[in-house]
């Protein structure tokens, strides 16, 4: 047998990389942070699973990614829609794939997410944590990008006829978090998610029985069973707006007047930007025909 000197080529690196990945996963030699975020699993498994949906199905068009800081904390606030919170996952992937620093967006989720087995652990490994002020402020103090949907279930659980109408922003806890940490608020508007599962009706009695916040009826669900879970292939736009500074001082965080004013400002910015994006979408759709 002759001496074989391996020529490092792309396939050799890939095979070696995949084997090393498998070994690390099998022996537990990887790191997670205190929130349970597993960056290796997110980059190697979760994001590649979401990417076809992002690129080929929703054809996400991202604008204004330069509004996100290259490093340091910021609170990314977006509208919420689409029955299943696919918009949160797409937003996180947009931030990672389009931002030059490939930053991870740390999403804040409802307690329902963390109640469910499997889902809760996937959410934590993907970098999410419970939407509560201690967690949001802790992440911001560590200089993370934090993603929040202040409409919550009111946003994703609204009927199709209410599409792109921003719902109430709750108590504005996200504003307090920004004020306490001095992190800027970056308003984001997402167009397209409303059409993925157009919710025609809400069976409240079934929802109560199942303990969920709503039970959607869409053109395909529950009629087609699991097939009804396939989202409609709407074209998406994600627009990042200019940062709204929140460095008024931590002592303002308890002042309801300041909090509601700032929350309203963010809400109106997102609503306006949604109207502009909808007009843009109408133009582009016309141009295609």
């Amino acid at each position, binding site marked *: 047998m002759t001496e*074989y000197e*391996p020529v490092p080529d792309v*396939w*050799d690196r890939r*095979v*070696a990389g995949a*084997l*090393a990945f*498998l*070994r690390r*996963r*099998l*022996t*537990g*030699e*990887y790191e*997670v*942070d*205190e*929130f*349970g975020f597993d960056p290796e699993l997110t980059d190697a498994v979760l994001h590649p699973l979401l990417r076809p949906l992002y690129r080929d199905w929703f054809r996400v068009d991202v604008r204004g990614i330069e509004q996100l800081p290259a490093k340091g904390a910021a609170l990314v606030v977006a509208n919420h829609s689409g029955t299943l919170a696919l918009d949160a996952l797409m937003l996180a992937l947009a931030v990672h794939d389009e931002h030059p620093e490939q930053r991870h967006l740390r999403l804040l989720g409802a*307690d329902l997410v*963390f*109640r*469910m*087995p*499997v889902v*809760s*652990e996937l959410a*934590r*490994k993907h970098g999410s*944590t*419970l939407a*509560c002020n*201690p*967690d949001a402020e*802790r992440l911001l103090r560590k200089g993370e990008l934090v993603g929040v949907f202040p409409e919550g279930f009111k946003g994703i659980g609204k009927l199709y006829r209410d599409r792109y109408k921003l719902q109430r922003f709750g108590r504005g806890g996200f504003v307090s978090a920004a004020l306490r940490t001095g992190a800027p608020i970056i308003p984001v508007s997402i167009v397209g998610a409303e059409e993925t599962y157009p919710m025609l009706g809400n069976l409240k009695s079934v929802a109560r029985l199942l303990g969920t916040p709503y039970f959607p009826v869409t053109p395909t669900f529950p009629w087609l069973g699991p097939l009804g879970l396939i989202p409609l292939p709407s074209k998406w736009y994600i627009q990042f707006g200019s940062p709204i500074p929140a460095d008024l001082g931590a002592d303002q965080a308890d002042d309801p007047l300041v909090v509601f004013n700032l929350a309203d400002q963010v809400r109106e910015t997102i609503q306006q930007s949604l109207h502009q994006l909808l007009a843009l979408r109408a133009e582009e759709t016309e141009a295609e025909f």
Partner: protein
Amino acid sequence: MTSAPVSAATPPRVVLVTGVSRYLGAQVAARLAADPRIERVIGLDDREPTGQQAAVLGDTVEFERADICTSEPARVITGRRVEAVVHLDIASGAGTQPGGRAAMKEQNVIGTMQLLAACQRAPDLRKIVVRSSTAAYGASFRDPAVFTEDTEPREIPRGGFARDVLDIEGYVRGFRRRRPEVAATVLRFAPLIGRHANTTLTRYFSSPIVPTVLGRDPRLQFVHVDDALEVLHRSVLEAHPGTFNVAGAGVITLSQAVRRAGRIALPVPERGMSALSRSGGGLGTTVSLDQLDLFVHGRVVDTTALIDEFGYTPRPTAVAFADFLRGTGSVLPGEAIKALEQTILAGIRQGRAALGR
């Protein structure tokens, strides 16, 4: 007889340690006795220390046999002019003692009440250090990811130990109100781990197949026994009144811990696990409701207050766990899998070379 007020920062002359017939109590008492700044150390327990514990205590610690659930400790504390009390006689599981959960609760709750009542009347007492646990934060799906000392539990936990811990801390709060001049230190320890630690959790990681909760991968934190001893020692010699989390920085998830230990996880639905814990085991291990809560919710604490106040940083959770694994002496899969990886890689390279590409 009057004496000048003594600052809490001065090391106490006489220290009483409860629970010296068990590992932690014996270690703490022996270490205090070895410190020249302390004149005498009295060890209290309701049974004579045996074996290793007796050897550790040696003749430097004066042993007093007394049942903590009675008023006997009061006689010792006042009679021997005790200046500092270290309360470690707190059982974390019912499995190790006769009488089960009832005896455990008696020891934890009534024992602490009696001891604190005795401390309240002790004229020379300047300091009290109480062992607590991060279980004091309870377990709920609405909990923040990281607990700071001021986080209140949202729900009363289902585990017996966690309930006891909440009661114990409640009594200490009452004591602080009644004797504000006594420096009271409450240490909320993460699960202890180390080469010689023998706890429910270390026994759990020592069995070849470990039951986990299906669909849950909790975040765990440990504190190395040596770090726990250091923090306890400093609490007695220095003045650190207040409540502090004691844990190693960082987390490892249960699945990581199981893989690093080279064990096989057996996911069981949560209902099955609670049935298992009530029936008292099977699979070579007992899973208590306390542990079940931990295995569903996980538990991570912030240790900034400890590091700032004590000027001491416990070793990280991952390092403490690795040290525990070295102590078990079992063969870890890391090296074997690394070798396998190299073999497969070499095989693929040779195969590709043979194919001429």
